[in-house]
């Protein structure tokens, strides 16, 4: 029970951090693309609303929950479009719905305010749903901080380049406040670094990192003005042209050593023959089209941006590693491994992206007709496995997730501690699952029926208030 409060509060603080960069992004979008047309405050309300909808729907089946999330998002976006674009008097008329849809799908003059509002509403809604599905512990909070800060920096960098006036101070201050408060609250239930003797050193480490990233961002924003960017891009363009010119000269030099075929000139095509005989024609043939140049310039610019980001990231992690080493040397220093910090977070992000990609590819394979081994299972076996998956999802939503390294038997022990009154029923489900999963058993239809009724009993047990069965 003591852990539930910090976790819920953690979600609140993570949401606050998310709201800071999201609001900054929306302000920038409003300033740049749709001045005065985006209802930023109402859009931000989508985050807590989606969070609440998802949390309320967690007792439903997965398909109903998905429908609630999607349907809620669509209604929310439509309401926002209606109230922000059309006068209140026009809302009773159904014509506004058709008008909205038309403008939403209109490609000419895109993006228009309605499209931007729909996009922003979807983003805020998805942000809220994401918060509702993740378990916000210290690692997660740290990850939110580490990824939120570069997003904020990027937004302010763009704002500086586009000379858009954004209220920069408030989001940054709130962002840091939310993080520090969230870290303190999330770790309040354990005897961790924020309560130990090394508290001051850890705070120094955090503040140093934050100051470094902010300082670098400030320096970047101050130094990299549009004029400087233009100069750098001009330099890169000149460099590129020179390089190409030298390549062409080299090819022309080589071409001189290759025996040229005798080109006869015909009266009808005299112009073409003359052009072919002209040595400068080789240079014309090697001209790079403009769109290739633009793509190359984009790739070069992206390369420099990524390189700068990696350098900043690396510097921050080196400083943090150095501080941790220093604290390790101190007698009595309470040092705790920061799981999920810096490089690990990046690796985790990449592995998540890869996992998601693999999932999409598998889905694509499924959609194209390739069936996996799990799909070829007998119906009864598939039913038992699906039932166990439901049990896992349900217990995870209730605060008892299975860890990846736990076997079904080990997890059964945890489940029984979590729900002692369902001990025998949980054991029954687990044992049948183990036989199906690892022993290749095919259960009978009556066993599946029994397991399904047992599963329903377990679900209803949890719904009863704690202690209601005790005398």
């Amino acid at each position, binding site marked *: 029970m003591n852990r539930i409060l910090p976790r819920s509060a953690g979600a609140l603080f993570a949401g606050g951090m998310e709201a800071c960069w999201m609001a900054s992004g929306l302000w920038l979008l409003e300033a740049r693309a749709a001045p005065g047309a985006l209802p930023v405050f109402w859009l931000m309300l989508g985050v807590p609303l989606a969070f609440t909808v998802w949390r309320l729907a967690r007792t439903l089946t997965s398909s109903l929950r998905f429908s609630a999330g999607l349907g809620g998002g669509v209604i929310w976006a439509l309401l926002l479009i209606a109230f922000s674009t059309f006068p209140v008097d026009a809302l009773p008329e159904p014509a506004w719905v058709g008008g909205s849809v038309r403008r939403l799908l209109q490609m000419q003059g895109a993006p228009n305010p309605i499209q931007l509002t729909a996009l922003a509403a979807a983003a805020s809604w998805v942000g809220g749903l994401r918060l509702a599905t993740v378990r916000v512990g210290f690692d997660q909070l740290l990850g939110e901080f580490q990824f939120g800060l570069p997003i904020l920096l990027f937004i302010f960098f763009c704002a500086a380049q586009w000379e858009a006036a954004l209220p920069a101070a408030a989001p940054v201050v709130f962002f840091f406040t939310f993080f520090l408060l969230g870290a303190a609250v999330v770790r309040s239930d354990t005897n961790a670094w924020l309560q130990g003797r090394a508290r001051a050193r850890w705070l120094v480490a955090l503040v140093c990192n934050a100051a470094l990233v902010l300082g670098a961002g400030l320096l970047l924003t101050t130094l990299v003005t549009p004029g400087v960017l233009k100069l750098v891009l001009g330099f890169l363009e000149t460099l590129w042209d020179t390089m190409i010119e030298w390549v062409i000269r080299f090819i022309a030099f080589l071409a001189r050593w290759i025996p040229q075929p005798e080109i006869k000139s015909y009266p009808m095509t005299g112009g073409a023959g003359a052009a072919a005989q002209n040595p400068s024609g080789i240079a014309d043939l090697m001209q790079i089209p403009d769109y290739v140049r633009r793509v190359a310039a984009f790739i070069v610019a992206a390369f420099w941006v990524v390189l700068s980001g990696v350098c900043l990231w690396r510097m921050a992690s080196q400083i943090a590693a150095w501080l941790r080493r220093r604290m390790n040397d101190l007698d009595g220093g309470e040092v705790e491994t920061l799981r999920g910090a810096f490089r690990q977070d990046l690796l985790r992000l990449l592995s998540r992206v890869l996992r998601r990609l693999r999932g999409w590819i598998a889905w694509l394979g499924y959609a194209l007709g390739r069936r996996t081994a799990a799909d070829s299972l007998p119906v009864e076996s598939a039913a038992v*496995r699906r039932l*166990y*998956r439901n049990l*896992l*999802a349900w217990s*995870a939503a209730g605060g008892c997730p*299975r860890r*990846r*390294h*736990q*076997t*079904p*038997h*080990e*997890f059964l022990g945890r489940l029984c501690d979590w729900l002692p009154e369902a001990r025998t029923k949980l054991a029954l489900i687990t044992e049948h*699952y*183990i*036989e199906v*999963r*690892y*022993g*290749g058993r095919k259960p009978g239809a009556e066993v599946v029926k029994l397991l399904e009724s047992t599963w329903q009993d377990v679900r209803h047990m949890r719904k009863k208030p704690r202690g209601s069965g005790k005398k």
Partner: protein
Amino acid sequence: MLERGPLDIQAAAKRFTSNVSRVIVGRSEVVELIFIALLCEGHVLIEDVPGLGKTLLARATARSLDGSFKRIQCTPDLLPSDVVGLHFFNQKLSEFEFRPGPVVANVVLVDEINRAMPRTQSCLLESMQERQVTVDWKTFSLPRPFILMATQNPIELEGTFPLPEAQLDRFLMKLRLGYPSVPDEAEVLSRYQQENPMDRLESVIGTTELLELQVLARHTLVIEPIRSYILAVTRATREHPDIRLGGSTRAALGLQAASQALAVCRGRDFVIPDDVKSLTIPVLSHRIIQKTEARLRGRAEEDLLREVLDSVPVPAEG
């Protein structure tokens, strides 16, 4: 061959455990591991401080099997020919005759193995892996089942020769007995007060039956995800930052065979992740080498393996 099933193995395991437990008190889990090694025909290294019953356990195991038993007491002057045997000149027949050494038996107890010199230790390599001995260019097969049980004392280092990695890798398991609890120790005193229970210990499993049970254990189902899990655990030992040398392919094979044996001992005909997890430490702990920094930090191999197990995802739903 009789038609046997997992329940027969479970019954045999029970017979064996209760028989050995007449002389070894309160160590049923270690005795079960020994039975698993018998089912895999794997060799066992028992390591602990003196006086905790290492040799007694090995002797009780040998006595519980209806097979030939030989004991080799290792000393620094023990020669390879004292172990594998030698050709001697029979004056009556006027020809060289092979006299097998103590290694030619069903169960061989190599006591204080780390007191033998490296060349004597190395002469066991062939017999442990290939179950044969070569003397004067002639190769002799060892009787089956062939199980070697070695004991060693980790405390005394003077006059000892640490076992090379190649030899350690040939042991299926390394077991530790540990100090008994107070009630168990009191029970030992009570049982040994008037007579030695070892004197009345009888064999409960025949060698033919054991061979049949071994075949049955090898037919235990291991599904592909469990096999991948075994490989993932073994490979994770090679990638752990505190481990210099991780588990070998032979280690993975041993872990799979031992998991199969444990599954049938529990009355199942398929392996589950719990089997693999519970055998990872006995099967892998002697095959990994820690980095010096980890050793200086006082970390044990068991701790590192627990970390490895905590890092490898178990094949299950979700």
